[in-house]
């Protein structure tokens, strides 16, 4: 047992740190660290900088641009990226549809989509959730019918994040109405420009418009847009959601946010006292840091343990989700504590709220309440924390 890293591991960490802090566009990092929303262009730029370095898709198969990194290397890559304020490569592309295509799709589909997906030449969005389905994803009702050599899709998806930027969507559709719930589902790709696809933005409580409803009305797509086998879509979705749990603890991100909070709390004053000198504030900050340190260690243990699992998701990663989401939420409470009365002003913009162009109150103030509101979602999506507890109860405690 040894908590220290090998010289090779440390060299890799330094490479990550150097690249993310010195070679990556500073302006984008600054916006992320300041809690501001990125424009489409900025997201694309950021993604392509990573892809140019070969770091947008490290967990893909090597032949499609992946790396043979160790778990520790992958950990440093994520941690340094999050700490530096570098946005992660677009998850819909690199963590979701990309790995599914690489693993299950035909050679033709791979060639057609993987390079463009890796470089964000195609922007993907996810058509999984449906109104009323929530955590019970398998109860989905959007259906695809085979008509000749096409699939005709009818139905409705929701919580489709950033669909306003998307070129393509990957959709879970019911293709066999007679089969049991999880069976009879297929995984189909559709061009967002296909006639019959319409989008309705949903405003969220942070003021943003990042999520959407997507309606499918007699949407005809070529039969070759089916990924893998018909009626096997549930397996692909589970594979995809397994990937989604990687890095879900967001330790590096929370580290960066706590660092920012310390800085701001040292500037912001209540009367003549600095916020950071308030004993209650510093106690809550310290508690959160201790909990995050424990989570970081837990994450390292899960990472280390991953080596022997052959890619099967470790149910212990549910701990990372549980604690990681709560800690992210706590950091947003701390930020509001720093800001005080200036949590109140609401600054709307097309890119969501949270810009502080007005210059009222302390820097970061305009993002504080929206961040708090927005982060309530992290214990709901990606398998709610209640679902994570069910997973641990069953898979680890054997109930």
């Amino acid at each position, binding site marked *: 047992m040894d908590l220290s890293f090998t010289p090779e591991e440390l060299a890799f960490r330094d490479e990550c740190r150097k690249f993310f802090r010195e070679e990556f566009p500073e302006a984008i990092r600054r916006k992320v660290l300041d809690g501001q929303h990125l424009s489409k262009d900025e997201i694309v730029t950021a993604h392509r900088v990573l892809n140019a370095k070969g770091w947008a898709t490290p967990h893909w198969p090597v032949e499609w641009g992946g790396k043979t990194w160790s778990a520790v290397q992958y950990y440093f890559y994520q941690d340094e990226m999050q700490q530096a304020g570098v946005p992660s490569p677009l998850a819909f592309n690199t963590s979701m549809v990309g790995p599914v295509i690489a693993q299950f799709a035909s050679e033709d589909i791979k060639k057609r989509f993987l390079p463009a997906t890796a470089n964000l030449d195609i922007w993907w969005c996810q058509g999984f959730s449906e109104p009323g389905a929530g955590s019970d994803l398998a109860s989905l009702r959007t259906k695809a019918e085979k008509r000749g050599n096409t699939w005709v899709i009818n139905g409705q998806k929701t919580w489709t994040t950033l669909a306003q930027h998307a070129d393509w969507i990957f959709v879970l559709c019911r293709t066999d109405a007679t089969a049991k719930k999880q069976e009879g589902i297929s995984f189909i790709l559709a061009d967002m420009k296909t006639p019959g696809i319409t989008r309705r933005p949903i405003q969220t409580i942070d003021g943003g418009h990042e999520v959407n409803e997507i309606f499918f009305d007699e949407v005809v797509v070529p039969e070759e847009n089916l990924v893998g086998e018909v009626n096997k879509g549930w397996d692909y979705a589970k594979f995809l959601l397994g990937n989604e749990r990687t890095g879900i603890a967001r330790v590096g991100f929370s580290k960066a946010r706590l660092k920012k909070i310390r800085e701001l709390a040292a500037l912001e004053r209540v009367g003549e006292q600095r916020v950071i000198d308030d004993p209650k504030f510093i106690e809550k900050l310290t508690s959160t840091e201790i909990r995050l340190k424990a989570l970081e260690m837990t994450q390292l243990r899960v990472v280390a343990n991953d080596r022997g699992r052959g890619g099967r998701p470790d149910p212990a990663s549910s701990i990372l989700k549980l604690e990681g989401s709560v800690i992210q939420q706590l950091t947003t409470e701390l930020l509001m504590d720093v800001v*005080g009365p200036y949590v109140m002003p609401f600054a*709307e913009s097309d890119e969501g709220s949270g810009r502080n162009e007005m210059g009222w109150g302390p820097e970061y103030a305009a993002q504080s309440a929206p961040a708090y509101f927005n982060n*309530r979602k992290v214990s709901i999506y990606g398998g709610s924390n209640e679902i994570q*507890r069910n997973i641990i109860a069953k898979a680890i405690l054997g109930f």
Partner: protein
Amino acid sequence: MDFDLSDDQRLLKDSVDRLIADRYAFDSRKKIMAEPGGWSRDMWAQFAELGLLGLPFPEAQGGFGGGPVETMLVMEAIGRGLVLEPFLPTVILGGGLIQAAGSPEQQKTLLPQIAQGKKTYAFAQVERSSRYNLADVQTTAKQDGGSWIINGEKSVVMAGDTADTLIVTARTAGGRFDRGGIGLFLVNAKAQGVTIQGYPTQDGAHAAEIRFDNARAEAVLGDPAGGLAAAELVMDQAMAAICAEAVGLMHEMHVSTVDYMKTRKQFGRAISEFQVLQHRSVDMFVALEQARSMSIFATFAASETDPATRSRNISAAKVQINNSGKHIGQECVQLHGGIAMTMEYKAGHYFKRMTMLEQLFGDTNTHQAKVAKAGSLF
């Protein structure tokens, strides 16, 4: 001891509840939010007609002589309806300050205007770093002939963008934190030297940043160097009022969660059948009842004669309200799931207002520290 409402109180409650049920449905509220300043003059007129805008004022001044219990009933209804009209800034703060510090003449002139819905007020007291300390005043008032000239900046003034009159705390003597030397000045919002930058707040209300550059006050309420005690009294009354509003919010969040659980199906059954979610909604209910108890406690504390006791008890209530409110708000969103994250559903709106109330007039830390300093509650 009696927790029942009197006949008059029940009548009041019923009529306010009815007005809000009739006129403050989710869609109506959305339309109201789009009006200038985010509130409805029509609704305001109805409030006036119902007597709400003069509720706490003496009958001689166009009011209904209501006490803290009546205010509590109205504020709870305001919470349940997420009402946007500036009842708190105008009636509770504005009217309260005039009652507490104004001369009989001022009371006789100004209170009926409020009661009739003719004038709205805002209380401009927060400054850039003052947070929740009313005595931290750097804005100045200097005598110039018979009137006062105000200079300084006020932050996050609730309803400050549409108020006709601003009541401004300003220093006529003493150093930054001194308790003495603070006056309450009436400034016409349209007066020269007053710059108002209004904006919406997170909860759908409005506030403003206000700068005073040699702005001339219309009048001063009471002693120009002795306004703090009245400001503290009225702030405590306002705190009791928002405790009641918060209980209204929590009540709606809890009811809406329980209702949603009974209809929402997951994995083939209503989610209300999951024991984990049942117990969590029970814990919300306990938090709600504890908050309701402390809202009543604050209501009666608001007319406590000893300022130290009043302030300690109301701070204690605010701590409970904040703790319950945060718990209920977060659980409300969590148990609803994604739908509560959208602006299209009411739960998120309650959660947002509750979050703002947690901070308004002092966050949990601030009030907890005040109680700790004041000694035992028993």
